């Protein structure tokens, strides 16, 4: 008879493996809470890619040059690809894409709150590329070393494409910033609106972040919210200067002692409002997803019926 292990001893062995920087693979034993945390996090990430297609997709049909139209279309397509890839990573943990989609549509799983802000002008496409993708990369670079193997490997690939997107966003804004007066204003207005929400993307301050301690112990999370936020600010301030655009924070300044940029207080009330479902576009984003799902139901059903018939024919032959 093979020896049986108590959950407790398995959990100890699991933690030891994590501590010695071994990755967790789909067939390894893992604590249920690790599994459910991982599913939730990967699903949330996948949902963010899919919902994130909406604010940028909003400008594809109005893109002001054919070159920009091609770049934007390809970018939004990449996001759909990332979504697919991440859902597949979640499926290695024993859930199905359909279940996760249903949870999203029922409002029981979240996506990044940043996408609940509207894209009001063309410059918002650039601001999303530069700031939102910039923040996402900061986050995701840390996640390339996350303990769950399939997720870490997905991050490596996604980061490569995201940094491409970020450069394109920067370049789009640069063109606007040194363009006509109206274009420059458009760019500044977009940066004014996206800067603070981008800082909120790293989540609440460490002191108030309920999941951080366990996630750090399991090495799901390798760097804390506040540290990631600081990295992002330090990286972005010089870029803003290069763009000739101001960041909307009078307290922003280099702190010689800390060796970092200081920045002003974040409006966490706004963050809670948007996470809580009361942002400008929460309802819109989900209702677009629901409509696409409902209107596509007959197509998926037809494909299944056809597939079934083909298989029937093959086995009859």
């Amino acid at each position: 008879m093979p020896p049986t292990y108590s959950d407790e001893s398995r959990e100890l062995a699991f933690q030891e493996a994590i501590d010695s920087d071994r990755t967790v693979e789909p067939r390894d034993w893992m604590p249920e809470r690790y599994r459910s945390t991982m599913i939730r996090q990967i699903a949330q990430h996948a949902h963010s890619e899919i919902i994130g297609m909406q604010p940028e997709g909003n400008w594809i049909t109005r893109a002001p040059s054919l070159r920009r139209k091609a770049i934007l279309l390809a970018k939004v397509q990449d996001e759909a690809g990332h979504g697919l890839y991440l859902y597949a990573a979640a499926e290695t943990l024993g859930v199905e894409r359909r279940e996760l989609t249903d949870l999203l549509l029922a409002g029981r799983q979240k996506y990044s709150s940043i996408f609940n802000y509207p894209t009001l002008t063309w410059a918002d496409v650039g601001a999303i590329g530069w700031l939102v993708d910039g923040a996402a990369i900061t986050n995701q670079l840390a996640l390339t070393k996350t303990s769950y193997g399939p997720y870490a490997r997905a991050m490596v690939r996604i980061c490569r494409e995201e940094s491409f997107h970020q450069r394109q966003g920067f370049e789009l804004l640069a063109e606007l910033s040194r363009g006509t007066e109206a274009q420059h204003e458009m760019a500044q207005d977009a940066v004014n609106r996206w800067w603070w929400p981008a800082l909120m993307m790293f989540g609440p301050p460490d002191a108030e972040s309920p999941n951080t301690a366990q996630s750090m112990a399991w090495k799901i999370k390798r760097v804390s919210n506040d540290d990631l936020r600081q990295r992002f600010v330090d990286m972005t301030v010089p870029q803003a200067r290069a763009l000739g655009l101001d960041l909307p924070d009078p307290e922003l300044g280099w702190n010689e002692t800390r060796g970092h940029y200081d920045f002003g207080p974040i409006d966490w009330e706004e963050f809670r409002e948007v996470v809580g479902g009361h942002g400008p576009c929460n309802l819109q984003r989900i209702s677009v997803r629901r409509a696409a799902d409902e209107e596509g139901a007959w197509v998926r059903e037809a494909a299944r019926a056809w597939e079934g018939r083909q298989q029937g024919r093959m086995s009859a032959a």
Partner: protein
Amino acid sequence: MTAQVAELSAVDLHEAALELGDDCLVLSHRLAEWTTHAPELEEEVALANLALDLLGQARSLLSLAGEAEGRGRDEDRLAYWRDDREFRNLLLVEQPNGDFAVTMTRQLLFSAYQELLYERMSSGTEPRLAAIAAKGVMEARYHLEHARLWVQRLGGGTEESHRRMRRALDLLWPYTKELFEPTEAWVRAADQGALPPLSSIEGSWRQAIQAVLESSHLEAPPFSAWQSGGRRGRHSEHLGHLLAEMQHLHRSHPNASW
């Protein structure tokens, strides 16, 4: 270059490239409208692929049209600063997306046409058109394959999908005659061997479509009130709205670069 091979005039090359380029530009735009509304995620990726391929072709063809014209109009000048009466695309490609059955039917009808066209164009006498076609034919083949698979699935899927497919065919069939009505510039381009005579591909197109419809339990509508005029700038009501959306931002900043 020998004297007896008459060259395609710049005016005709401009016109021909515009006709082909506008088809791609307008259909690409329609496909891009699906973004975030596709019936499944895989199809988001596929529809964007189609749209991107056609946009790439449109850019090459419009750039060529601008060069041939020699008045300094580039791809954006041609895409954003012409009104609907100056657009030369087929009526078929500007028809609204409708449901997924309409979109895939439109794609089947157009891609079958484009594949035959590009295949012959790629060995045509105008080197720049031939080069664009040689690259485009691979893409058209993939688009046709994608549309064919969906038409078969929908035609032979459920009662509802079958009903929607029949409705889509009724809706779009009237625009298919125009595919084979050449403009004067096209006739001259065909005389020079730069483009195939449309009569030379019509039979193959009918056969190809017929085969797909048969394998999808569908048939072409027996009669249609044929519509044409797109190649001469007489469009359906839909194109004006498409252009209004596509062009507004660009035109709002006349001297800007993007």
